[in-house]
C-alpha cells in the first residue's frame, strides 16, 4: 500500500451515459494492490454501472480503465483479469460445486487432474473440503457465498469485484460474513472492489471507501475519515446516523461558528475548512454519540451547546440504545445512551439536559445534498 506501488486498478475520467442520463460522471480513482476498496452509495447512484464497466459488461462512454497498467478498452469480459461475485451469486445450478469452481479452469484449457487439484485446494481454503460433489441448492447461504468467491479466486484474478454479495443473507449471517470476507481477502491477498449501499459493511471491511452519489464520488477515504471528517453534507448524512439542522450563520470565529436554526435554536459548530460566511444558509450535523446526557446543566458546563428537553421515546437496542429528546423548539434529537448503562432508567417524559462540543457540529453550505 506504499504509494510507489503501481495501482492494481486505475480508472481515469470514467463516464457513462445512458441516453440523456449521466450514470457515471467523470470518475477517477486508483486501487492499490492487495487493498479492500468499497464504493458506497444509495441505489441508483451509479456504483453498479462502474462495476459493470470494470468487468467489461458495459463500455465506458469515455475514459479508460487500466488493470495492472494495461488498458481494458475493447477487451471482452472473458479476457479480462478480473472476476466478479454477483449479487445473487449466480452459481451454475446445472453443475455440482466442483464443476462450478472448475468452470473457469476448464475454460483455460487445464488438464483434468490439475483442475481437480486446484478445486480441492480452493475448497480447503474456504473451509469447505469435500463438498465438491454436492449440488448448489444443498448448500446454506453462507456456504454458497464462499463457493462463489472460490469460483473466482481459483482463476487468480488481479482484481475481484463484489456486487453487494451479502444482500441476500439474513441478518445474523451478514454480521458474521463481514468479518469472514475481510479474512478471506487477507488470506487470498487479492485486491477486492466491493460495492454496497450498506454503510456498516463498507466501514467494517474496507481499507478505502468511495462514497458515491448521482454519478460522482463525493469523498474517497478511510472509514474514519468519512465518519469523523465528512467532506460534504451528503457524506455526513449517509455515513452513520446524525441529527441535522438547517439555519443561517450568525457568527464566524476562525473554524468555529454560530448558527441560528430555522426552528429557533442557537447552535455552535465548526466548518473544518469549508467556505462559510455570516449570513450563509448552512446545515449542521451532530452524531447521536457525540451528545452527552446529564442530570444537571452544571455537568455540561464544558460544552458550548447545551439543551434542556424531555424524553419522548426510548429506543432500547442493547449497547446501541438511544433516546429521543424533544428540545424547546419542538424538534426531536437522537442521543445515544452510554454503554455503561448509566441513564438506562430514564423513562418517557423525564426532563434531561444534553450537550455537545461545537467541534462535533459539522457545518456545510445548505442545499449541497
Amino acid at each position, binding site marked *: 500500500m506504499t504509494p510507489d506501488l503501481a495501482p492494481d486498478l486505475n480508472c481515469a475520467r470514467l463516464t457513462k451515459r445512458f441516453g440523456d442520463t449521466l450514470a457515471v460522471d467523470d470518475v477517477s480513482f486508483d486501487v492499490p494492490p492487495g487493498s479492500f476498496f468499497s464504493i458506497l452509495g444509495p441505489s441508483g447512484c451509479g456504483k453498479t454501472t462502474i462495476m459493470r464497466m470494470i468487468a467489461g459488461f458495459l463500455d465506458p462512454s469515455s475514459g479508460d480503465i487500466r488493470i495492472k497498467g494495461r488498458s481494458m478498452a475493447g477487451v471482452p469480459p472473458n479476457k479480462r483479469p478480473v*472476476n466478479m461475485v454477483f*449479487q445473487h451469486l449466480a452459481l*451454475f*445450478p446445472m*453443475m455440482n460445486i466442483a464443476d462450478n469452481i472448475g468452470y473457469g479452469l476448464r475454460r*483455460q484449457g487445464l488438464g483434468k487432474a490439475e483442475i481437480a487439484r486446484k478445486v480441492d485446494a480452493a475448497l480447503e481454503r474456504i473451509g469447505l473440503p469435500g463438498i465438491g460433489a454436492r449440488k448448489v441448492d444443498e448448500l446454506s447461504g453462507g456456504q454458497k457465498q464462499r463457493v462463489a468467491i472460490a469460483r473466482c479466486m481459483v482463476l487468480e484474478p488481479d482484481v475481484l469485484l463484489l456486487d453487494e454479495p451479502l444482500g441476500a443473507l439474513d441478518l445474523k449471517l451478514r454480521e458474521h460474513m463481514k468479518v469472514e470476507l475481510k479474512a478471506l481477502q487477507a488470506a487470498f491477498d487479492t485486491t477486492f472492489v466491493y460495492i454496497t449501499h450498506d454503510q456498516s459493511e463498507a466501514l467494517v471491511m474496507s481499507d478505502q471507501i468511495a462514497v458515491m452519489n448521482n454519478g460522482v464520488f463525493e469523498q474517497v477515504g478511510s472509514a474514519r475519515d468519512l465518519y469523523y471528517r465528512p467532506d460534504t453534507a451528503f457524506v455526513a448524512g449517509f455515513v452513520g446516523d446524525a441529527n441535522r439542522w438547517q439555519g443561517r450563520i450568525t457568527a464566524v470565529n476562525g473554524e468555529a461558528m454560530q448558527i441560528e436554526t430555522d426552528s429557533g435554536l442557537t447552535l455552535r459548530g465548526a466548518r473544518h475548512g469549508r467556505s462559510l460566511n455570516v449570513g450563509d444558509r448552512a446545515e449542521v450535523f451532530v452524531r447521536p454519540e457525540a451528545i452527552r446526557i446529564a442530570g444537571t446543566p452544571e455537568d455540561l458546563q464544558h460544552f458550548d451547546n447545551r439543551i434542556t428537553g424531555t424524553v419522548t421515546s426510548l429506543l432500547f437496542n442493547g449497547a446501541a440504545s438511544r433516546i429521543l429528546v424533544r428540545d424547546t423548539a419542538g424538534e426531536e434529537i437522537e442521543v445515544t445512551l452510554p454503554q455503561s448503562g448509566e441513564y438506562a432508567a430514564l423513562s418517557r417524559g423525564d426532563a434531561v439536559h444534553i450537550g455537545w462540543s461545537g467541534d462535533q457540529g459539522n457545518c456545510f453550505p445548505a442545499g449541497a445534498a
Partner: protein
Amino acid sequence: MRAEAKLGFILLLTPLLLWLTLLIFIPHVDMFLVSLRERVGVGKHDTSLANYRTFLTEPLYLWTFLRTAVMSVVATAITLIIAFPVSYYIAKIAKGRLQSALFLLCLIPFYVSELVRTFGWMILLRETGLVSNLLLWAGLADQPVEMLYNDAAIMVGLVYTSMLFMVVPLVTTLESLDDSVIEAGYDLGGTGFSVLREIVIPHAAPGIVSGCIVVFMLSLGNYLTPTMLGGKDSLWFTELIYSQFIVRFNWELGAAFGFMLLFLSSLIVWGMLKITGQTLEKTMG
C-alpha cells in the same frame, strides 16, 4: 383448511375431472375396443387382432407411418433450430414493447384459420402463382414452376404451424435463467459457444424437450397441411385413417390405425426421452 373451503375446491375440481374422464379416457378406451372387432358379416363382429395384423402385414401402411414419423422428426428439428434463437431473443435481449410484439408475432398463426392460411400458400406457390411468376420474370426459370404438392411445402406448413408450441416453452425456461448466470459464464472466461453449450442449453433442456414432444405429436397428427400442400406421393398417416373412416367406412380398421398412431408415437417419444436422459417430470419442472 375449513370444511366449506374444501367443498369449494371439490366443486372447482369437478369440471376438470369430468373433462378428464369423459373426453380423454373413454373415447380412447372405446376406440381400442372397436379396433379389436373383426367384421365377419354385415353387422356381425368377432373379437380379434385382425385389424392390427392388417396394419403390420401391409407394407404401404407401415411405410406411410415411417415416412410420417421421419418427416415429423425433421419438422421438429427445423422448428427447434429456428425457434431457439428467436426465443433467446425474446426472453433475454428484447425488452418491453419489443418483447411483447415479438411474442404476439408467434401468436399470429393462431389468429388466421389453418385452412385459410393453407389456401393462402396454395395461391402463392401454385404454378400460376406469385412466386412462379416472379421466378419467370427474373429469368430464374424458363417455364412456370409448381412449388406445391411436394415435401418441402409440407415442411414449411408444419414448421409455421408449430412455431408457437416451441417458442412458448423455450421462452418460459429461458426467462427463468438468471441473466447474471450467463454473465458469470462470460466473466469466468467462457466464450459465446461454451456458455451456450454448458449453461444455456442445459438450463433450457426441459423446455426443449417439452417443446419437441408437442411439435412432434402435432406434426404427426396434422391432417389439413399434408393433405392440401402435399402431392400424391406425400401420403400422410392421418390420410390413411381418414380414408378408412370416411371413404371406406371401415371404422374398425380406422380405429386400429388411430390406436397404432398413438402407441407408436408414444414409443418414439419415450425412446427420445431415454436417449436424451430426460424424464417427463423434469420436463414439467
